[in-house]
């Protein structure tokens, strides 16, 4: 098994408006992109488990030219509410670093 962080040169998260979180997962090249971007560990179901997201709402868009995949899900509570802990969702990517991919 390899970890996602081992086959990517950048993994980042950001708010996409007040209601969505978006992840940009840049693989370290076309070979890794082709091999791993459809891995079940990066599926909508996996995001549902990792982030409490509604799997049916998870959007996945591969960008071949950039060897990256964009994955987004609606925040479980809107930005800036009573229990906000990450206004820009900038630290939400961290649990992805150790996600294991089939080798």
């Amino acid at each position, binding site marked *: 098994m390899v970890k996602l962080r081992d086959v990517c040169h950048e993994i980042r998260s*950001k*708010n996409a408006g007040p209601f969505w979180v978006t992840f940009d997962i840049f693989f370290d090249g076309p070979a890794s992109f082709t091999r791993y971007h459809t891995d079940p560990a990066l599926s909508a179901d996996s995001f549902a488990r990792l982030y409490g997201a*509604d799997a049916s709402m998870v959007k996945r868009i591969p*960008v071949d030219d*950039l060897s990256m995949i964009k994955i987004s899900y609606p925040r479980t509570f*809107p930005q*800036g509410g009573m229990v906000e*802990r990450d206004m*820009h969702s900038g630290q939400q990517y961290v649990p992805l670093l150790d996600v294991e991919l089939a080798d």
Partner: protein
Amino acid sequence: MTEQPPAADAFAGPIKVLVPCGSLGAGVRESEIAYGIAEGAHVIASDAGSTDSGAAYLALGKSKNSRGAVKRDLEILMRAQAEHGIPIIIGTSGQAGGDLNLQWTREIVEEVAAELGTAPKIALIHCEQDKATIKRLNAAGRIQPLPPLGPLEDEVIDQCEHIVAALGVEHFIAALDGGADIILGGRSTDTAVLACYPIWKGAPWGPAWHAGKTGECGVQCSVNPTLGSGVMLTVKADGFEVAPLSDDNRCSVHSVSAHMLYENTDPFRLAEPGGVLDVTRARYTQLDERTVSVSGSGWEPGPYSMKLEGASAGQYQTMMLVGIRNPEVLSDIENFHDKLLAALYERTRKSFPAEALGEFHISLRMYGWNGIDGKPVPPDRPPPPEIGMVFVATADTQELANAIAHACNPYFFHYPNVMNKEIPSYGFMLSPADVPCGQFFEFRLNHIVALDDPFELVRIEYVDLASGSAAAQKEAVHG
């Protein structure tokens, strides 16, 4: 104003849009403005805010950037405007684009004009909505939710402090038609602010909108966003070019194409007022060392719609912070958190009659442990050397949130992990220990309103400083 994109062969272009910064007040550089003017800029365009930093700025009508910073940037831009006779277009004025935000920006512009001795004609594009209008449109079935929100309830409309509809290119074009030297837009799509001038000059809509999206954050689409502040967009008949305004920086195919990912869930198709920008077939080419050329950007015209934003104010919060290095706490953080939180709730309920307390909430956030997500930490994780523990009380008034913090203060400060041991003292950073935070704010609308006329929800006000009394020059224009 909803005509189809004109034929590209009617376009005399190229049109050069000087984007001085990612957001007005972020720090415009005089050298970059001089460079952009020398390169032949036709217009200066920038947004002045976004929803990124939360709903407070719309709810309160305040800017995140300081008045001094916005004034400094406007001084540089307005001097260039006056000397070279090119317009300035600002979108999402005052951070959130409500009427209060717009008025705040207008006053700075008028102050700068007086100091510079200039007399520009200013267009103020108002897009703040009254609740009755939104309720009427909602009742008529013209407001649809965007995921993840559901249908709009009138109760939600009533809860909003301010509601705005995001402007498209049509509104800025009307202000350009009106002869404005400086256009201050209310809430606008970032893209429309930069796309409007080339479209006004007849540019094809696909390249104009895509250029606008690319330049929305200024130098962010370059290889090194720390070098410089702005970019130049050159919109042509068959595409557009983008280059940074600082000659020690460059744009690359990767930096430009990757910017389409920023703050979007779909990097290929972006819904805008009146259509969709489609960059699925866009091709990026390195034109020279610093410049990227983009072709193949498409625009699909559609029914006219505007996106609504509404911000509500919630309850009031008060916080306290302590640092903890106590090894007994650090070896048992989860249990300590749970016991202390229960004790704080109990203490609060004993300190106030239930009817005085109303709905209240207390949270403890263990920074250094799970402060960001609050979720259980894997059991094999070693304890940190210290944690910062934040207490947040939420209640109906600031006085009550403060009072809850005061009542909880001794427990928060002294609560031991093992009962009956000597009372510890955790490390308070501040005295007074409690910090009133004011209200929290939330966006409540993520909806689209369908419109037959792009100007149904928009009002343009002109202030011509050349004609003396500004107040006498108010004039409403309908597109």
